[in-house]
């Protein structure tokens, strides 16, 4: 009698196993192609075993100047945006957690709603606002810069400049980061701060000596999600950057595979793999916080 449920359980286990294998193949196959193509001397559009193994594609990414530039631009803008988000959301999340003021609840609801706004829908007005800022900065820079005008604008410009991309990328990550930090600080007892206040510490001292050390795990989570989302963003660099020397990895990759006739699959696969690796590393650390981000934030 006991044999039937066991046999049935075995059948279900087998079914589960087959299903998981099939879904995993579906999920992994594109990655297998990319990894093999990036190591193939004669990579093709379709999945195949390499003719001969080589690291030449990767070496060429860094030997041809563009690949290095794209990587450096991506890393610089995304890391700057992430650091900005960590600082701003750390301060703001603390304020949102400790405040009892009337604006707290409307603000928290508002940033949840901001999260759902599609960024394409905000793009045109955003572009016009950035253009206004850009003209303002241009008017300030032009008289003093002389012939360095373009170089300076590539750094401090809001259109076709690093600063604009960094600020907009950071703003896009703020809603989630603020929620993560708010929920995190909700879980940090007030006793530590109160002890510091009794010892006569000022707000700045309290933040530096007490709150930052306590908040590190929350800041790490907020930073990871900001990094992943900003790293994967395609729309903003597509719209905001036009100079070749400012191009980032997603745009470089996109433009390169549009030239379908002269396409070098090995090189492209190597660039795509290099672009993918930081995202996968960040994701593997962020995975354990994933569920909480759906329901609001990360518990302390």
């Amino acid at each position, binding site marked *: 009698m006991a044999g039937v449920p066991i046999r049935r359980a075995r059948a279900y286990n087998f079914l589960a196993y087959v299903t998981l294998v099939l*879904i995993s193949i579906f*999920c992994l196959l594109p990655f297998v192609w990319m990894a093999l193509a990036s190591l193939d001397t004669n990579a*093709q559009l379709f999945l195949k075993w390499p003719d001969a193994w080589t690291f030449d594609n990767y070496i060429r990414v860094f030997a041809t100047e563009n690949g290095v530039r794209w990587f450096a631009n991506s890393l610089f803008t995304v890391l700057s945006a992430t650091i900005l988000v960590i600082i701003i959301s750390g301060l703001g999340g603390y304020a949102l957690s400790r405040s009892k003021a009337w604006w707290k609840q409307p603000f928290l*609801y508002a940033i949840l709603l901001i999260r759902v706004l599609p960024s394409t829908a905000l793009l045109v007005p955003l572009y016009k606002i950035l253009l206004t800022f850009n003209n303002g900065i241009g008017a300030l820079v032009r008289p003093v810069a002389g012939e360095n005008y373009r170089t300076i604008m590539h750094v401090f410009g809001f259109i076709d400049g690093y600063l604009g991309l960094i600020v907009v990328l950071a703003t896009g990550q703020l809603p989630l980061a603020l929620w993560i930090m708010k929920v995190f600080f909700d879980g940090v007892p007030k006793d530590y701060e109160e002890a510091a206040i009794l010892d006569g510490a000022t707000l700045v001292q309290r933040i530096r000596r007490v709150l930052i050390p306590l908040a590190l795990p929350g800041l790490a989570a907020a930073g990871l999600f900001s990094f992943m989302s900003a790293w994967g963003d*395609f729309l903003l660099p597509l719209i905001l950057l036009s100079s070749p020397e400012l191009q980032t990895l997603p745009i470089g990759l996109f433009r390169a*595979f549009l030239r379908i006739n002269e396409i070098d699959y090995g090189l492209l696969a190597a660039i795509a793999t290099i*672009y*993918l690796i930081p995202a996968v590393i960040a994701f593997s650390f962020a995975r354990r916080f994933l569920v909480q981000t759906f329901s609001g934030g990360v518990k302390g």
Partner: protein
Amino acid sequence: MALDAYQKRKERQLLKLLLPALIPLLVLTIYPALYAVYLSMTNEALTGVAAARPRFVGAANYFRLFSDTRFWNSLFVTFVFVAGSAIIGQFVLGFISAMALRRKVVGSSIFGAAILLPNAAPEVVAGFMWISMLAGGDHATLSKIMIALGLPWADWLQTFPLFMVTMVNTWRGIGTAMILLTAGLSAVPSEVYEAARMDGANPRQMFFRITLPLMAPTIFLYMLISTVSTISVFGLVYALTRGGPGNATEVISVYIYNQSFTTFQLGYGAAGAVVALLISLTLGIGYVRSLKVSV
């Protein structure tokens, strides 16, 4: 009274800490959203007569929008894309994966990692990899697999563009669905299953009478989040098809982009953007309510 003054001073300090977050959010998200509403009532453009002197045109853009078959097409494409990938594809495959992984099969952590990997891929990388799978007629990887299995092949992105784009988006989201639904599944108390087994319920009955009803709140929350985030998908579709062939895969975000940045009709594009904003906001309010956040 002294305590009151202290409390007030403290609140002022906290507001100052929030300002660095408040200012960019106001200037770069709230203001653009309101500005989009204004733009949608002008004939603003980057080229032509209207570029020099934009005029207020009232609801004219909206009348034009609602009689534009390409706009209705984009709403329909978005609906199929969201329903097919977020509501059906990701949910069904994610749920199956979550249920299968609960059976503690050998190597479950490897399966979990494999299913989550597409989540980590940036949109453009996903587009690039899937071009290899789907583009190039009989040279595409999928065609080669079909040929090897003795099945017919096709020029996938030309023949079934919307289905293929929906499938690729499904691929990207199975992991998220799996993670969220696993959390929901583990919240169902095992005593309930024990009791049902005592009463002689079979696995099918247990799934439909226990698992599904108890999971309903999680499933609802998942559907809202994935719907909202799928409406704003842009890079994946743009990298794969740029909305084509024809307008077969022109989801609303690609439609807005094309109207604004390839035909340069900013006012008209903004009208489409406002419709997209309203749809997302409506769903977003549902999301906020269903979270029942205590703040």
